[in-house]
């Protein structure tokens, strides 16, 4: 064989782990995908090589999340392996071992927000963010990444982590939030004051399929990527917009996914959702692997594929319209009047209610982002979380961004000291992703 394999596959089906025995996120989820990959003999192809995942370290998680009360308390080993396996996939590409990589593993992560009280949307740890922060640390912060999330659900967790980060472009294409969990991802959510326009959301009307998804990639994602010039493109490849998925109302096919992969040519693909474990996942995953390997994927067809989904049809008008809006927004993002969007205060403040469907936790967040001319600004988050039958928890967190200016560093320390001296908080956290050693997150137990 000449040269290195095209695709490194980090496959980890976690055959001994489930959220609950009959939960969609259960042992059986990737069983048929494993069988299909083996029967198709994909691992014998010189273009494809399989690798073993590793466990993520606690500091890899702390570079991204504030876990309440601690990483050890909210993570199981399976979360550390899913995150570590994603990091492994990233290492394969950045170390030049393979041209691209596919982290085909579970559980998923894109609904995990910056603050983690538990599991939401089946996610606890945001694997893509753990990878991005891992690479950013090893590259001394000089890294521009584009994350293109094509899961049917809005990637609200990834959006939350990178909402105000000028080096990370986050594009989410998903079923309209008015019809599906988690409800967010409207077209006017465009990022915080320090990274305006670097969060893009394209909601698709229920019933959308290959034509809409591929149109969005060709007319929105590719031109934006060309303009942004990222060092790395990650596709968070949820497969729940498949026509057989039990949780959503979309019409994407294995051929559509494979074509998307071919068009996007991402450096990394990371599995997110997808719960049609027999009708979709085996075929979609084989399609993605073949497309990444540059092999002919046109023979990958689902047994239940309705003929009408194979026919050409025009793209829905609404999608064409929204793509045009986002193109314009992107092109003019640097001239945007931020005072009009975020106000003229020293701090941009927002107040959110968040719901953890998996663990049934209700959270209220008050967030302040410092508007700083020198850096993207430190953040302060006050979070009140309540789980039925448990004592509610109140925490405060101060987050430094990458490349924080001296003023922000200083002020963040001051704010942290004030919070620590108050008896109001069960835990107070200070997170600095640039710290080379633990603790990346300093915890003070307020009580």
């Amino acid at each position: 064989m000449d040269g290195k394999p095209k695709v490194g596959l980090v496959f980890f089906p976690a055959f001994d782990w489930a959220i609950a025995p009959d939960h969609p996120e259960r042992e059986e989820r990737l069983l048929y995908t494993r069988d299909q990959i083996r029967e198709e003999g994909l691992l014998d192809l010189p273009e494809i090589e399989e690798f073993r995942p590793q466990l993520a370290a606690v500091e890899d998680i702390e570079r991204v999340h504030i876990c309440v009360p601690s990483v050890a308390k909210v993570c199981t080993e399976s979360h550390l392996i899913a995150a570590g396996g994603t990091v492994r996939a990233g290492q394969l590409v950045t170390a030049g071992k393979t041209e691209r990589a596919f982290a085909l593993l579970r559980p998923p992560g894109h609904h995990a927000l910056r603050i983690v009280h538990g599991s939401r949307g089946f996610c606890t740890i945001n694997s893509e963010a753990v990878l991005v922060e891992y690479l950013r640390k090893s590259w001394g912060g000089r890294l521009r990444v584009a994350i293109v999330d094509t899961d049917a659900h809005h990637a609200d967790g990834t959006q939350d982590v990178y909402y105000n980060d000028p080096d990370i472009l986050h594009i989410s294409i998903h079923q309209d939030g008015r019809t599906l969990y988690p409800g967010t991802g409207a077209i006017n959510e465009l990022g915080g004051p320090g990274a305006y326009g670097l969060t893009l959301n394209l909601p698709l009307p229920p019933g959308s399929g290959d034509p809409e998804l591929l149109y969005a990639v060709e007319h929105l994602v590719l031109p934006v990527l060309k303009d942004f010039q990222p060092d790395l493109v990650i596709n968070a490849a949820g497969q729940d917009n498949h026509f057989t998925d039990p949780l959503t109302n979309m019409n994407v096919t294995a051929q559509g996914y494979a074509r998307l992969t071919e068009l996007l040519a991402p450096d990394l693909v990371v599995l997110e959702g997808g719960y049609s474990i027999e009708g979709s996942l085996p075929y979609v995953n084989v399609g993605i692997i073949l497309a990444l390997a540059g092999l002919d994927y046109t023979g990958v067809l689902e047994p239940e594929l309705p003929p009408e989904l194979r026919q050409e049809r025009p793209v829905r008008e609404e999608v064409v319209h929204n793509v045009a809006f986002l193109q314009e927004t992107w092109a003019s993002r640097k001239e945007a009047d931020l005072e009009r969007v975020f106000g003229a205060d020293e701090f941009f403040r927002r107040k959110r209610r968040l719901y953890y469907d998996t663990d049934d936790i209700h959270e209220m967040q008050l967030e302040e982002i410092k508007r700083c001319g020198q850096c993207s600004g430190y953040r302060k988050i006050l979070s009140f979380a309540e789980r039925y039958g448990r004592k509610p928890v109140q925490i405060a967190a101060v987050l430094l961004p990458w490349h924080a200016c001296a003023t922000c560093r200083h002020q963040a320390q001051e704010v942290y000291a004030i919070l620590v001296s108050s008896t109001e908080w069960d835990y107070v956290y200070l997170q600095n992703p640039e710290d080379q050693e633990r603790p990346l997150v300093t915890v003070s137990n307020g009580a």
Partner: protein
Amino acid sequence: MSYLIGIDVGGTNTNGVLLKEGKILATVKAPTDHQNLHTGTRSAITQLLSDLPGKEPDKVELHLSTTLATNAVVEGKGAPTAVLIIPGPGLRWEEFKLPFKLYPLTGYIDHRGREVKPLDRAELRQQLTAIKEAGYQALAVVGKFSPRNFQHELAIESMIAKDDPQLLPVTLGHRLSGKLNFARRITTAALNASIAKLQAEFVHMVQALKAQYRLGRIYLLKADGGTLALQESINRSIETILSGPAASLMGTMALADGIQDAVALDIGGTTTEISVFAGGEPLAEREGAVIAGFPTLVPAFFSRSIGLGGDSVVTYDGNRVTIGPQREGPPVALGGPRVTPTDAVLVLGGAALGNPQRSFRAIQALGAPFGCAPLRLAEQIVTAFAEKAAQVIKEIYQELNNRPVYTVSQVLTGANFQPQKLIGMGGPAVYFIPKIGQQLGLPYQVLPYHEAANAIGAAASRPTFAITLRSDTALGQLVVPELDYAETIRRPFSFNLEVAREEAIRHVLDYAAEFGVRYEPAEIELTEEEVFNLVRGFHTIGKYYSLRAQVKPKTRSIQLC
């Protein structure tokens, strides 16, 4: 069963050994006649039996390791073979790089063994006509996911039996392996079909010997070091490929003392073969043997070959010594053209062979331009040899410990493979193994060179047979593809893992009994076990079990006299 003959028909020589209760009574050796493999076998048996003490011998069991299948495959001597495939959707079969003519058929079985699309009999007839017109003499039939549901393959076979019996026998993919891998199954079945006729001729000749010499049961050695009943080898000839290396490894097991976790090096003139023992058993390839560059599903030992041997070419640039991977002839001491590691050993006085003076002068000439004294350079060469072998061994263990795993508990267990001992075989082993052991910090054992080691290995091995049992209580189906066994599960609610295990063991016992071998259930081991809850729409609708069961691999221990 008291007398046992082991014969290894090797590339150069045919070696035979006669054993009684684990003791070697006699050995013989004759050059191999590649045109008539059975003549060498015959004369070896004649000689061994003539040495037999006493009058009337009891029936003698015969174990044969031959190069027949390997050579037929490697030299492409098999019959021109056509393969009827039922590819269904997926990776395009047109992309397969296989040296067989593929005839695709409509029909589709999915990953759970459900028929999505039936066969088209009219189309099958057309394809068979095309195959006959093209003059193919051998035929295999392989469907995607056929180990999950082999009814299409069986239907095709019975239609051929009815309409085109001259095309029989056909090899059906599911019978050769219960493992998933469509392309490998095509290769395995096609190779099996292509050499079936040669194998049948060979079996006939050996059977003639049976009558002549009052032989008892006759077995052939397989790539996994087990044996296969002679008669059954007509159907599964492909399993006898690579039986030479297997015989060698079984010889190691029989002759070495207390192998648990060890790495074994068979150092030859051109190459070194490296294999691995874990927990006292030789490690197997994950999927199957690779022969002549073709990946198959044939169960085989894990082994890696490196271009490093006693006759490898040595080069020196004044700084680094490089060894191999080519061989350009024997050592200088034996009149060869280039310095070899063996010459270095001779210069250091480690062995007596040929003309060591010539070795000395050649190494002197190699070092002179760089001012390197011959003794120092000879030391450096032996060290380089050991370093290279040690490096490859480390890489192999790294590879083994990085094998993908699919459960959380396996990830947490971490690295499993660690050698505790180094075992050396082959002529040059005695010179290099101590150095390699030093490099790796491992105790070592060099097996005394025994010309009949492979024959001893053949004699020491025992029948092996593995089956796959898969049951899906939601579909109410249980299959054992290797045995054409399919049944409907009548009581899905009382079917559990215990039942599945008992069934799997029973099938192995029954199969062995068919060939006259009786085992106790305790001699059967379960090598793989998977159980999944099948959940649809938040309800458990059944369970899925997948088990592999086999006769525990064992060797007889053999004493050298």
